[in-house]
C-alpha cells in the first residue's frame, strides 16, 4: 500500500509509503495525533487521501491519478474499532452475521450459522449468541468486534487501538491471544496503537510515526536497540541521552567512533557519514549500563581509561520497582537512569562507577 494524503490546511499524514507483506503483522505506533489512525482509515476507505495510491493485494482500491476510490463496503477488509462499535440493537449472533448477510453472494441460513459459530469459537464466545450485544463485558465486546471483523475472512485485518479500552490485566492476556489468532489464520494485519509494549510484543514490523510521517520502520528488536532518531529512542522505552561532539570517525566498517561528552570521552556506534566535530547525542538504555563492582577509585582513574567507557558518578536516588531497581546517578551534572537487578546493594549518596558498553551506545544526529 502506498499513498499520500493531505487534509485541510494541516497535514494529518504526508508522504507516507508503507508496504505490508502477506501474513505480516504490521504496527503503526505513535503518540496521539501523529496520523496513524488517519492512515488506517484511508486503507479502510473511511477517509480519502488527496494524493497517492492504495492497493490491497493486487487490487487497486484508491488512486488519485486515476480518480479511483473503491468505497469501504467493497474492499476486502475487516476492521475492529477503538470503541468496538458493537451494534446495540442486535444480538451477538446478528452482529457477527451482519457482514455475511451483506455479501454479494447470498449465503444460506445454514452456512451463515456455521460461519458465525466458527468465528465465535475463534474468540471463545460460544454460548452467548442470543445475548443482546449491550449486555457484554468490555473484554467480550472486544472479542465480538474481532469475530465480526474476521467472519468474512478478509484479506486484510485493520485494528484501531483495539486493546485501549480494556483494563491492564485483560489487555496483557488479550495481546498474546490476538497475535496468536491472526498468526494462526495467516491474515495480513495492520495495527494501530500508541502503546509501545503492544507494538513491540505483537508485531513483525513496527512503523513509528510522528507528525504525519513515518520516522522509522523496522522489526521490534531493531526499533528498540537501534533507534534511528531521537524521537524514536525517546518514545520507546526509557533512554539516557548524552550530548557531545564527534572526536574520531571510524576508518573501517563496524569500528567504533569516539565522542567527547561533558562527562568524558565515550566510544560508540556513529551514524553513517558523520564528520568529526559534528554535534551528536548518544543514546543508551538504562538496562545496558553496568554498575562496576568495588569501591570507587579516584576520578582521574576513569579519565585515564577512556576505552572502557567508564564514568564516575554519585547515586542520588534508588527506587525499588519490584522486578528492577532504578538508580538515578548524577554524572557530570547530568542525571542518568540505570536499571539494576533488585538484589543489588546500592544506597543513595554512594560514589560509583558506571560502565557504558560501547556497542550499546548509539550516537544520533541531533
Amino acid at each position, binding site marked *: 500500500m502506498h499513498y499520500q494524503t493531505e487534509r485541510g490546511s494541516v497535514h494529518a499524514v504526508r508522504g507516507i509509503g508503507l508496504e505490508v507483506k502477506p501474513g505480516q503483522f504490521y504496527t503503526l505506533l505513535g503518540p496521539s495525533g501523529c496520523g496513524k489512525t488517519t492512515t488506517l482509515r484511508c486503507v479502510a*476507505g473511511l477517509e*480519502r487521501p488527496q494524493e497517492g495510491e492504495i492497493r490491497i493485494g493486487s487490487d487497486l482500491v484508491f488512486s488519485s491519478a486515476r480518480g479511483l476510490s473503491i468505497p469501504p463496503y467493497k474492499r476486502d477488509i475487516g*476492521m475492529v*474499532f477503538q*470503541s468496538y*462499535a458493537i*451494534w*446495540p440493537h442486535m444480538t451477538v449472533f446478528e452482529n457477527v452475521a451482519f457482514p455475511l448477510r451483506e*455479501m454479494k453472494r447470498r449465503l444460506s441460513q445454514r452456512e451463515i450459522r456455521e460461519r458465525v459459530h466458527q468465528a465465535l469459537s475463534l474468540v471463545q464466545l460460544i454460548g452467548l449468541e442470543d445475548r443482546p450485544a449491550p449486555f457484554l463485558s468490555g473484554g467480550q465486546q472486544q472479542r465480538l468486534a474481532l469475530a465480526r471483523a474476521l467472519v468474512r475472512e478478509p484479506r486484510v485485518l485493520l485494528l484501531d487501538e483495539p486493546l485501549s479500552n480494556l483494563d491492564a490485566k485483560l489487555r496483557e492476556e488479550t495481546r498474546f491471544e490476538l497475535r496468536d489468532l491472526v498468526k494462526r489464520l495467516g491474515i495480513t494485519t495492520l495495527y494501530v496503537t500508541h502503546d509501545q509494549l503492544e507494538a513491540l510484543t505483537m508485531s513483525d514490523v513496527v512503523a513509528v510515526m510522528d507528525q504525519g510521517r513515518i520516522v522509522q520502520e523496522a522489526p521490534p528488536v531493531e526499533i528498540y536497540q537501534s533507534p534511528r532518531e531521537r524521537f524514536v529512542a525517546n518514545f520507546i522505552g526509557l533512554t539516557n541521552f548524552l550530548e557531545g561532539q564527534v572526536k574520531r570517525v571510524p576508518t573501517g566498517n563496524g569500528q567504533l567512533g569516539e565522542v567527547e561528552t561533558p562527562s568524558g570521552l565515550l566510544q560508540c556506534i556513529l551514524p553513517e557519514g558523520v564528520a568529526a566535530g559534528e554535534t551528536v547525542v548518544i543514546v543508551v538504555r538504562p538496562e545496558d549500563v553496568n554498575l562496576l563492582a568495588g569501591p570507587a577509585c579516584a576520578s582521574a582513574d576513569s579519565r585515564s581509561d577512556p576505552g572502557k567507557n567508564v564514568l564516575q558518578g554519585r547515586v542520588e536516588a534508588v527506587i525499588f520497582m519490584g522486578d528492577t531497581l532504578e538508580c538515578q546517578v548524577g554524572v557530570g551534572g547530568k542525571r542518568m537512569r540505570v536499571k539494576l537487578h533488585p538484589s543489588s546493594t546500592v544506597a543513595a549518596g554512594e560514589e560509583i562507577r558506571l560502565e557504558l558498553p560501547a556497542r550499546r551506545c548509539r550516537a544520533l544526529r541531533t
Partner: protein
Amino acid sequence: MDTAARLQLWPHGLFFLVLFLVMAPLLFLVLGSFSTARLPGDFSLSTMGVANYFKVYSDPGTYELLTNTVIYVAGSVALGISLAFSLAWLVERTNMPGKIWVYAGVPMTLAVPGMLQAMAWVLLLSPRIGMVNRILKDLFGPETPPINIYSLGGMIFLEGLRLVPTAFLMLVPLLRSMDPALEEAAAISGARPISAARKITFRLLAPGLVAVMIYQAMTALEVFEIPGILGLPAGIYVFSTKIYAILRSATFLPVYGQANALAMVYLVLAVVTTYFYSRMISRAERYTIITGKGYRPRQLDLRGWRYPALGLALLFLFLAVVLPFLVFLYTSFLPYLQAPSLAALSGLTLKNYRLLIEYGEVGRALTNTLVMVLVTATATTLLSFFVSLVVVRSSFWGRRLLDQLAFMPHAIPGIVMGIAFFWLFLKLDFLPLYGTIWAMSIGFTVSFLSYGTRSMNAALLQIHKELEEAAYVSGAAPRRMMWRIFFPLMLPTLAGVWIWVILHAVRVAGIPLMLYEGPSNQVLAILIWNMWDEGYVGAVAAIGNLLMISLLLLTVLVRVAGFRRHAVQLGGA
C-alpha cells in the same frame, strides 16, 4: 466527494424552509404591531405607526395586567418548584417507602390536559356550583364563604400543580448525580450537616435549580388554558389571556394591532430568558463534574416520618390526576351537576354520552383533530430529523444558525405564535390555508420544532459514528447501512417525538384558538372550550373523560418506548 453537490443542495433547501417558517410569522407579528389599519387584510406600509404601542402601554390596565402576571408566575413557580423539589428529594435522598408510585405517577400527570384540569377544579371549587363549596355549605350553613377558584390564588394553585411533573423530571437527575463524596468531604473537613447542606449541596444544586426555575417561569407565562378558564370569567387577566381577549372579545371590535403590540412583551421576554437560560445551563454543565458513575447518594432515614411523607406524595398525585379524573367520570354520568349523594348516584345516566353523538360538531371535530394531529406529528418528526441531521452530521455552513432558528419558537407562546400565523396566512392569501386545519398543523409544527430538534440532536450525538463505519467495513452499502443500523437505532427517538407531539397537539388550545374559523377547522380543544362556554358541562365531562383515558394510554406507550431507548443507550459506544 462526488455527492458533494447533492449534499449541499438539500441543506440549503431545508435552511430556507426553516428560516421562512420561523421568521415569516414573526416578521408579520412585528409589522402588524405597527399597523393602524383595523383589519390585518388592510395592512399596508402607509398605515404604519406607533399608535398601538401608545394605546397599549399608556393604558393603566396594562400595568395591572403586569402586576397580575408577575404574581401569577412567581406564585405558581414557587409552589411548583417547592412541590417538585420535595418530591424529588423524598424519592432520591430519603428512605420513603413506595417510591415507585411517585416515579411512575408524577410523569403521568403530564397526560392530563390543563384545560380539563382547570375545568375539573371549577366543578369542585366554583363559588356557585362547586361540589366542595356545596358540601361545605351543607355542613356549616349557607353563610360559609366559598373557596373561589376564579381568582389569582386559584390560578397559582393549579398552575403550580401543573408545573410539578416537568420540574420533577428535571430535578431528579440533578439530585441523583450528586456525588456523596462531595458532602462527605465537607463533613470530614468539619462542617456540620446544616452547614454542609448550605455551603456544598445547595451551592452545587443552585445553577441547575435556577435553570429549572427560569424554564418553569417561561412555561407559566406562556400557558393559556389555566388563566383562560379560571381568570377570564372573573376578569382577571394575565398577558396570554389579555391578548386573546383583545382579539376574541364578543363586545368590542377586535384591534389586531394592539394585540400584536402587547405580544411584543413576549418577544422581548423570550430573547432575555433564552439568553439567561442558556447561560445557566452552561454553568450547570460546568458543575457536572458531579455526574458520572452510578453511585447511590446517601439516604436520609426519615424514621417515623416515612409514611406521612408517602402520604403527602400520594396526596399530590390524588390532587393532580386522580381527583380531576374522578370528577369528570362522576359528572359525565350525571343528568345535571350536583354534589355527590345517594340521590345523585341513583340518577346516573348515559345522557351526556348520547349528547356527544347528537351534538353535530363532534364527529367533524374528531376527524379534524385526528388528521391535524397525525399530520403535525409526522411533519414535526420528519422536519426535526432532517434539521438535526444537518446540524449534527453535516459540515453545512449554516448549521449552527439552523439549530438556533429551530430552537427559537420554544420561547414563543402558542397564543402569540397563533397571532403571527394568523397574520401570515391572511397576507399570503394566494395560499388557501387560512381557516383550515393545515394552518394549525403548520403552526404546531413550527412551535414543536424546538422540542423535536433537541431530542433528535441528542439521539444523533449518541449514535457513535463508528457504529455506521463498522457497517461500511462489514460490506454494507450506504442505503443498507441506513436501513439496518441507522434507522433501527433512531426508531425509539422518532417514535418518542411522534407520540409526544400527538400528546401535545391534541390538547394545546393556544394556536387553534387563534386560527379557528368555524366548523371546517374545529378541533377537539376548541370544541371542549366552546361547549364549556355554552354550558354543556356534562358533555365536556364525557368527552374529557374519553380524551384523558386515551392520553394516559399514549403516555404509558411513551414510557415503554423510553425504556427501550434506555436499553439502547447502554450500548452506544
